[in-house]
């Protein structure tokens, strides 16, 4: 996993242009190849219920990583932004509730849904950016909770408690895009695109300025930057990623309900990002894989051990506790330390 080498994290390397493919480490090619041929190895269940879901959650967590890692803004509203996109896809497109759904074709409904999500995320950001640290968390949590209660209690637009179901993914060119293999490739494409966008933008003037705001907002003012506008723009960019993930999420699940955007899922996104590591954009995807695997198999493991299956949340919690206990910077940090130790001579302690 060479992603943790400094030359790959994009902090240096100004001399070689970013599009020079020789800069892409070998590991990227290997991981990319494995992901591409995954449908040959894995069955339908793994493809849609593990990998596609993990990629979608990874994208939402990536939007949080962008805000928290580069901008020091811990936003709990990212799942809600994705949820807004999911609801809007169902409302603009088709669902079983045809009194609500407008039945527009997917190529109108999906971009519009993302647009609404971006507007929602940007407005949430505009509210949150005037605060720092724990107050940002509180405000975004409040927005997430308010949105949850709104969709649960509003029946005219969001169909209340039961939400909107039978939302169909597009079918065109003779492909049913909800089928596991096509859908896997769609999510993989979107996830890779989001990942690449974050890596690229981190080194652009906008991304650098955001990191400047993270390190020292007051100095950014004194260099001519409008810090507030920069932070809000960061929310807009993050919402674009989260909104795209939200459209994929409603296509994957076929339904969206208040449970999708509750406070629990909002905190899950935070856990995914923190457990994976927010120092690099790959972290959220690692965290998402771990989360989804634990979510899916914890119950089976418990039953196999002769324990009650309903305690699966306990196992998930213990898993995350273990990661955070051994590494404050998540899986990324664990891996980094392991590599450093492997490089070192065990006797002399010197780097080989």
């Amino acid at each position: 996993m060479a992603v943790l080498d400094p030359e790959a994290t994009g902090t240096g390397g100004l001399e070689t242009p970013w599009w020079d493919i020789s800069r892409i480490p070998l590991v990227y090619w290997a991981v990319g190849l494995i992901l591409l041929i995954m449908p040959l190895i894995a069955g339908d269940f793994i493809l849609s219920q593990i990998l596609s879901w993990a990629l979608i959650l990874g994208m939402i967590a990536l939007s949080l990583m962008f805000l928290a890692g580069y901008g020091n803004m811990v936003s709990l509203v990212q799942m809600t932004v994705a949820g807004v996109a999911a609801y809007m896809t169902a409302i603009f497109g088709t669902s079983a509730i045809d009194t609500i759904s407008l039945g527009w074709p997917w190529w109108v409904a999906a971009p519009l849904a993302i647009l609404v999500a971006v507007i929602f995320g940007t407005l949430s950001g505009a509210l949150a950016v005037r605060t720092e640290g724990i107050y940002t968390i509180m405000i975004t949590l409040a927005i997430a909770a308010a949105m949850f209660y709104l969709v649960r209690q509003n029946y005219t637009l969001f169909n209340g408690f039961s939400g909107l179901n039978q939302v169909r993914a597009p079918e065109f060119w003779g492909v049913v895009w909800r089928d596991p293999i096509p859908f896997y490739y769609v999510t993989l494409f979107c996830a890779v695109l989001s990942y690449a966008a974050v890596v690229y933008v981190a080194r652009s003037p906008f991304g650098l300025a955001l990191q400047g705001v993270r390190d020292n907002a007051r100095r950014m003012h004194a260099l001519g930057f409008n810090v507030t506008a920069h932070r809000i723009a960061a929310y807009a960019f993050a919402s674009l990623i989260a909104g795209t993930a939200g459209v994929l999420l409603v296509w994957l699940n076929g339904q969206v309900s208040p449970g999708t955007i509750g406070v629990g899922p909002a905190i899950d996104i935070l856990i995914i990002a923190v457990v994976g590591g927010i120092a690099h954009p790959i972290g959220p995807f690692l965290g998402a894989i771990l989360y989804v695997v634990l979510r899916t198999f914890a119950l089976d493991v418990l039953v196999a051990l002769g324990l009650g299956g309903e305690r699966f949340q306990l196992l998930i919690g213990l898993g995350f506790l273990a990661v955070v206990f051994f590494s404050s910077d998540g899986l990324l940090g664990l891996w980094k330390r392991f590599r450093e130790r492997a490089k070192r001579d065990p006797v002399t302690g010197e780097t080989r």
Partner: protein
Amino acid sequence: MAETVAARLSATGTANALELRGVSRLFGALAALTDISMTVQPGERRAVLGSNGAGKTTLFNCITGDFPPSSGTIRLFGEDVTDFPPYERIRRGLRRTYQISLLFTGLTVLDNVYLACRGVSRGRFSFIRPRRNDALMASARDLVEAVHLTPARDTEVAALSYGQQRQLEIALALAGAPRFVLFDEPAAGLSPTERRELIEILTNLPEHIGYMIIEHDMDVALRVAESVTMMHNGRIFKEGSPQEIEEDPEVQELYLGGGLAHH
């Protein structure tokens, strides 16, 4: 770029670089600044002296807008900037350094300076990475060279020595086309060699760039400034040439303890 130079030349011809009228700043019941009025000519280099708590840094904070004044007006090159946020003042040619370095510790030296160059030009929100022949990146490299930091160019700022961080602090204030710079104790904590380098950098600045410098080291202050403002308890106590200030009996009694009389 051309229009900013033209604007600067026309502005330098017509207006004072800085004009303060009755500027006061209260922190609760504490008056940090009381009724400060001063005029600084374009290109003028002035030292601000005074003991701790005299209000020197607060004065700088009011001028840059870090803390706006409680009352009074501030004009920058003839324009009333009293209600402007800091970044609008910076974009008009004002710059400052901080007493305690405020740097971007997670970024490299070059990225720090690049941000400073970007902040006073267009494309602050650009999503496009700078190309290899990017003009701003080139000027950032020149600026790094000018403050003798080229060997540390790609080092993360957190890993720099104290002296190097102070040099970077100055580089950030000289990005773009500065017209008036506020230096807040740039020499504090520097070694004698670094001090000499600093004096060299300040005295070699182009003539049209004026500055105000807060400096406790009288030796540095009087070598880089042509006029002196003494502050005491948030008020201006004396203004004059370095020699007048040095020889003023009241000043000697208050601050210098006669120590500089035989210089």
